[in-house]
């Protein structure tokens, strides 16, 4: 199939998926993944309709780079919306709620990962995958359900801010561990490089504010977008070239831009750019997924869902209590935080990098397929839990009272 035609079909599939998501009132992420799976060689490629082979779309260089840009822009936005002052301002509550969330879910993930996959690195990856909630889906659901105007929004968004910072550090270490050399010395070197790079970027964020401000001064919308994309993708590319996570680099570049006076304009102008490439990323995830392999790890996904739904409910509930909310609203915090999504998939993509190296190809493939199945389940389950929160709230009030 001609290249442009294939890309056109890919974007058409994305558009159809988003349309369907809007129609049935669910998040776009699971549908993008399913759309990707549907047009992949593993599904469409195997289909024969009326004697004709159904054409499949292969993930060529364009789709892979597009997916990478999706990761870069997702993390860039996280940095752009990340506000260190805000974190410091309400640090004690965010710190309490966020640390409970991290300890409970990352801890449970470590144990679960070690039991299921048997290696420390796989356990570390799985811990990240089940720890990190989906900012994109949760924020959107908060708005759709009108909870955004209620008190439960504060602990949810606060915990997400904590998770955002945690995931930036986590990704830097995960990439170093997965792509790093063998042996203690090689590992120490790559982790050292990653942490050194973070430190350097933090210094840029701290002292480079004025330079970033000057860069954007007096620019039209067109120049603004071009300059920011130019800076962000270049720095992400440099990071990747020296073996550091491009996502983490993008996060800190976003953070640097967030201190400029142009931050609101940037968010408005770059949102469509992020949405396009993020959609390519989710479809790419689907393209790389073989549904048969996902079915093969269905039991693992089932166990993970059974274990990590209650852990998020528990940590979210405690997080709500840390914000002085009553049992009813704290229950909502727990229900809302169940959703996992984009960041778990980014970690899965990292795991794939380690196939045949630090991870055996079988384990890397299993983690990848597991994550796709897990995110599909948790993104839908989380949205449903928020939609039908009332029975849970009633139980909580009956058990714990109203205060």
């Amino acid at each position: 199939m001609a290249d442009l035609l294939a890309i056109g079909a890919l974007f058409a599939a994305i558009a159809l998926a988003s349309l369907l998501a809007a129609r049935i009132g669910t998040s776009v992420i699971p549908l993008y993944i399913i759309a990707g799976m549907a047009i992949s060689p593993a599904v469409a490629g195997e289909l024969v309709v009326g004697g004709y082979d159904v054409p499949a779309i292969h993930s060529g260089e364009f789709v892979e780079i597009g997916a990478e840009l999706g990761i870069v822009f997702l993390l860039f936005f996280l940095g752009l919306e990340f506000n260190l002052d805000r974190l410091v301002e309400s640090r004690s509550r965010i710190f309490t709620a966020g640390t409970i969330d991290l300890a409970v879910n990352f801890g449970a993930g470590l144990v679960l990962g070690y039991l299921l996959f048997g290696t420390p690195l796989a356990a570390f990856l799985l811990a990240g995958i089940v720890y990190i909630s989906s900012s994109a889906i949760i924020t959107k659901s908060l708005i759709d359900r009108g909870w955004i105007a209620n008190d439960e929004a504060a602990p949810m968004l606060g915990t997400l801010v904590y998770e955002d910072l945690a995931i930036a550090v986590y990704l830097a270490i995960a990439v170093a561990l997965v792509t790093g050399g063998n042996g203690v010395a090689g590992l120490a070197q790559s982790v050292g490089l990653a942490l050194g790079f973070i430190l350097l970027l933090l210094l840029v964020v701290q002292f480079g504010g004025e330079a970033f401000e000057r860069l954007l001064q007096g620019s039209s919308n067109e120049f603004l977008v071009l300059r920011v994309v130019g800076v962000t993708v270049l720095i992400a590319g440099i990071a990747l070239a020296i073996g550091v996570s491009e996502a983490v680099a993008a996060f800190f570049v976003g953070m640097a831009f967030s201190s400029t006076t142009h931050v609101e304009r940037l968010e408005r102008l770059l949102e469509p750019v992020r949405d396009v490439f993020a959609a390519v990323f989710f479809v790419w995830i689907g393209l790389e997924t073989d549904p048969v392999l996902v079915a093969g790890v269905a039991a693992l996904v089932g166990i993970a869902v059974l274990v990590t739904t209650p852990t998020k409910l528990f940590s979210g509930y405690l997080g709500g209590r840390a914000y002085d909310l009553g049992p009813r609203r704290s229950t909502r915090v727990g229900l809302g935080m169940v959703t996992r999504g984009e960041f778990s998939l980014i970690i899965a993509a990292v795991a794939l990098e380690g196939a045949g190296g630090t991870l055996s190809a079988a384990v890397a493939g299993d983690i990848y397929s597991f994550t796709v199945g897990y995110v599909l389940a948790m993104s839908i389950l989380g949205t449903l839990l928020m939609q039908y929160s009332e029975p849970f709230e009633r139980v909580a009030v009956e058990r714990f009272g109203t205060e």
Partner: protein
Amino acid sequence: MVSEAKADAMDVIESDLPGVGKKHEVELGDGTSLVIVTHNTGQRELYLKPDDDSDSEKLVELSDRLARMVGTILEGAYFQPVQSEHVETMLTEGTLLEWYAVEASSPLVGETLESAHVGRKTGVTVVAIQRDEDVISAPDSQTEIEAEDTLVVIGDRESCDAFETMLTGDEEEE
């Protein structure tokens, strides 16, 4: 972050919604509060919260443009039920941006900004004159003031009060 608004001990609670925008909660006095969610995209959502324990009920969703228009109406720019001859906006603490209508009876009609010594006597700066459909921005000292003009001035409250006195000609009557 809690910022107190002035007058009637109104409490406005401002809080950040990371990734979404900002939330302002305005207590309406009878236990209910009006919740305004301003999205980074400019979209505004208005909610009414019957009391502290209840869920907010969504009233309306406004685009940035609509929200500004509604805001202007609420501010009284189109119609002021309470007699007030001018509209004011606080630029910073202590500095006001005010609109004054020039009535035909005003002693300033026919004077220029220079001949009336507006700046020297009152301390305000006339930054624009609205005349019919036109806006004369940064009028120079020779610009003549006409009846039916609207003068846009900047100054501290004292200067603005002095200007209002000059404009209405009250000082001569007293």
